[in-house]
């Protein structure tokens, strides 16, 4: 396939059209679980069971689930610090994730990382990074390694709209383009970098046009619709796999909560928020599935109830999970046998 540098307008295929009923229902269930997980995290944070920073993905669940579904074995996902749902979509269990948020030994990384630093490389999840934009050159390097090894794997790298002005991102895009690296960059544009509206601090809108500056195919999609998300990312994955070209995508989305738990969210009005919430990805998918006869009110309510029950158990177990042993402090500073003198 010839590479056409320019806007990704959709390649005429709709990958989502070939999703099975079972896959669609799983997708829906996964997103409901994401929502309930994040709500449980919010509540636990309020109760002082989760510490430090806690960034929720409520409203943006479709992006985690849609992207994960587009990945094949060996593909990699890298993101910043709003990652609970992404890690869970990539196979971190709810329990492992919640235990990590609780700082327990049984957590995803033994209590060493917390909310911002989850990892599951054996299933393609490469973190979990706290400095705005730092994950982008790293993800580009992972793509470089895949191309070097000729293993056909593709990297999907997320960043926020607030991140795109970091120099490291521009440098990365240039490298990915000149070396034709198989990577899909996705800007989750929820319109606020922390409390700052993106149009106040960016010359870019539309952000995806940044790709053009580096001769990279670019495009945008509705990140509140999981099927459109899946379609757009699948197309970019196919480009990476068949031509080893990068893609730069912009997902339009909304986070329904503050930037972090300590964000009062004064920068948008209640009406604005209500409007954003009307595009909630979960009811949106539910409606599609109801129309296809896969869901009805009863099933929707059963799925939700099961999710709530599950999170209740998860929270209880997290509450009872053991704290890490003090001896763990000194492990993994270096490889075993290394010295830290």
């Amino acid at each position, binding site marked *: 396939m010839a590479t056409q540098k320019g806007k990704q307008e959709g390649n005429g295929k709709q990958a989502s059209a070939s999703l099975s009923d079972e896959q669609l229902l799983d997708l829906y269930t996964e997103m409901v679980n994401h929502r309930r997980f994040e709500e449980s995290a919010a509540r636990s944070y309020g109760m002082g069971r989760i*510490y*430090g*920073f806690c960034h929720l993905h409520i409203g943006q669940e479709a992006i985690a689930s849609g992207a994960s579904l587009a990945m094949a074995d060996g593909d990699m996902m890298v993101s910043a610090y709003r990652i609970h749902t992404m890690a869970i979509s990539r196979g971190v269990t709810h329990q492992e994730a919640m235990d*990590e948020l609780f*700082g*327990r*030994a049984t*957590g995803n990384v033994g*209590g*060493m*990382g*917390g*909310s*911002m*630093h989850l990892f599951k490389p054996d299933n393609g999840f490469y973190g979990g*990074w*706290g*400095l*705005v*934009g730092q994950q982008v050159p790293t993800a580009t390097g992972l793509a470089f390694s895949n191309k070097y090894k000729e293993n056909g794997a593709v990297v999907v790298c997320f960043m926020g709209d*607030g*991140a795109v*002005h*970091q*120099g*490291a991102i521009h440098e990365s895009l240039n490298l990915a383009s000149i070396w034709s690296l198989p990577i899909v960059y996705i800007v989750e544009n929820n319109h606020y*970098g*922390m*409390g*700052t509206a993106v149009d*106040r*601090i*960016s010359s870019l809108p539309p952000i995806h046009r940044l790709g053009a500056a580096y001769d990279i195919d670019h495009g945008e999609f509705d990140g509140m619709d999981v099927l459109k998300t899946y379609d757009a990312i699948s197309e970019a994955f196919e480009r990476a796999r068949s031509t080893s070209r990068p893609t730069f995508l912009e997902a339009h989305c909304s986070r329904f909560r503050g930037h972090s738990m300590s964000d009062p969210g*004064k*920068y948008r009005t209640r009406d604005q928020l209500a409007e954003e919430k009307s595009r909630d990805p979960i009811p949106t998918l539910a409606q599609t599935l109801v129309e296809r006869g896969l869901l009805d009110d009863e099933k929707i309510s059963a799925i939700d109830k099961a999710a709530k029950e599950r999170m209740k158990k998860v929270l209880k177990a997290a509450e009872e999970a053991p*704290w*890490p042993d*003090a001896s*763990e*402090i*000194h492990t993994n*500073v270096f490889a075993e046998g290394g010295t*830290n003198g």
Partner: protein
Amino acid sequence: MAEMLYREALNQALAEEMERDDRVFLMGEEVAEYNGAYKVSQGLLDRFGSKRVIDTPIAELGFVGLGVGAAMGGLIPVVEVMTFNFAILSLDAIVNTAAKTRYMSNGTLSCPMVLRGATGAGGALAAQHSQSLESQYTNIPGLKVVSAATPADAKGLLKSAIRDPDPVIFFEHESLYATKGDVPEGEYVIPLGRGDVKRAGADVTVIAWSRQMRNLMDGVEAMCERTGLDIELIDPRSLRPIDEDLIFESVRKTNRVVIVEEAWGHSSAGAEISDRIQRGCFDYLDAPVTRVSHLEVPMPYSPPLEALVLPNNDRIEAALRSVTYGAAKGGADG
């Protein structure tokens, strides 16, 4: 005197200096409309307008570098980094440009700016957001490094930093913003490089700064009671230039030193102070200079582990017992 929060004292210093000198402007992430990630710049946008209180994109190298240029161009930028963990991205502008401007230009250019923001462990923020990187800056000739423990110091030092003709790196501790203290009103300026005796004592000198000094100040009477030692608390306040005279005077009196540092001890500011003491006070030392600092690991997230990595009273008191050769309550020798 008025009792106020640390963040309010910083706010007052900023407002007074902006009032005094219209070359002074504030720039950084969320400083204007959001009123500051830690509310230090509360109300400044309303008071001074968007020309002088400026929200930036998240692009630390860009906006800190811009601050360096603006300073060179005759302004006095106060550049806020949300935390010094993020300022790492701007080090090229600070280390390669700001610190060298005056020297390389043979004095024909200067860079009178302040880079300020939060440092330290704010509470379970994990490895990337809990660092204290003061020592890294103290290693660079051309930079002054300041760290305030109390609201009064915060005000007096920030005013000095803004008036200083050279780049000043100003560290505020994330856990100190909500602490209270008396602050002199109006013109109150503490010269850079001047330390402070936070408590006079006879038996042992404890040197600390920032949050660790504040913790010590809050708990020192109980600590004296527990250890039976009359502790002298010395806050250097500036880590470069450093108030050697004040430190030496104290050490010559007490003969014993414990340095408490919320940072890794390897090649640190505490190590520098320790070195100066052994050279300047060799004949006055009755025990090795002893340091209490972070365990040498990245910060773990889990709170019980974090508590072990940070300096704590148990470790500080063990160090006190060590330098006084076990002189415990009632057993302290002069």
